[in-house]
């Protein structure tokens, strides 16, 4: 494969265009045979939720996403990798996060996208808090043990 281009990593308040990001990866070079995308979306939580507020640690969030993306590029033969994480208020139905991984064949793209998402959830310094439909500020979202288990799963299979 051609040399791996630097991953595209963005933290932004604005929404993103999934189709445009896929095009960016597929048009960048001629050997792209597969692009896997994951889009994380804000749930309505049975109508309770007005919005999620996403806080982050400026500086470390960029550094940590860079380390996660760097590890993915080392583990899998990727033609490109894009990670976009939103901050601020996100309403139900709106995008929160995008991971897009491109490769010659599908397997590397699937695995790399899954790896990056798992580490984004448990290692990238972002925190979600609920804003409720009754106008009040709700609780901070609690981390799930299952997410931490998935991190350990990747460590065990580390080559």
């Amino acid at each position: 494969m051609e040399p791996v281009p630097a991953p595209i990593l963005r933290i932004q308040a604005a929404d993103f265009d999934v189709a445009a990001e896929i095009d960016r990866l597929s048009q960048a070079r001629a050997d792209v045979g597969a692009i896997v995308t994951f889009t994380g979306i804000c749930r309505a939580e049975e109508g309770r939720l007005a919005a999620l507020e996403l806080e982050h640690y400026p500086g470390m969030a960029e550094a940590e996403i860079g380390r996660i993306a760097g590890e993915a590029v080392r583990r899998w033969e990727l033609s490109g990798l894009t990670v976009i994480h939103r901050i601020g208020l996100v309403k139900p139905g709106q995008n929160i996060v995008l991971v897009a991984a491109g490769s010659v064949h599908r397997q590397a793209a699937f695995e790399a996208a899954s790896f990056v998402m798992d580490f984004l959830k448990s290692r990238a310094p972002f925190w979600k808090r609920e804003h409720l439909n009754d106008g009040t500020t709700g609780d901070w979202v609690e981390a799930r043990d299952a997410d931490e288990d998935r991190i350990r799963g990747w460590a065990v299979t580390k080559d």
Partner: protein
Amino acid sequence: MASDVKLVYFAWVRERIGKAEEDIDLPAEVSTVAQLLVFLRERGEEYRNALARPEVIRVAIDHEHVDHGHSIAGAREIALFPPMTGG
């Protein structure tokens, strides 16, 4: 020798302590993350409340994750925060 370090707090750790960041003079005997958490809990009710369960507190030194046994020697910025919930 005491050392001057910047502490930064996020999410409910920030809310319970009541500030986003502060500069603090650490006595020389505070040399690990675990010792820092003990030291901070003695600073007042809001710190005791924020750090009541130290085992859930995540720590980063100069933008990198560390465990509670890690040395804080030479740290410029130490961040305390809850388990992360991005993605």
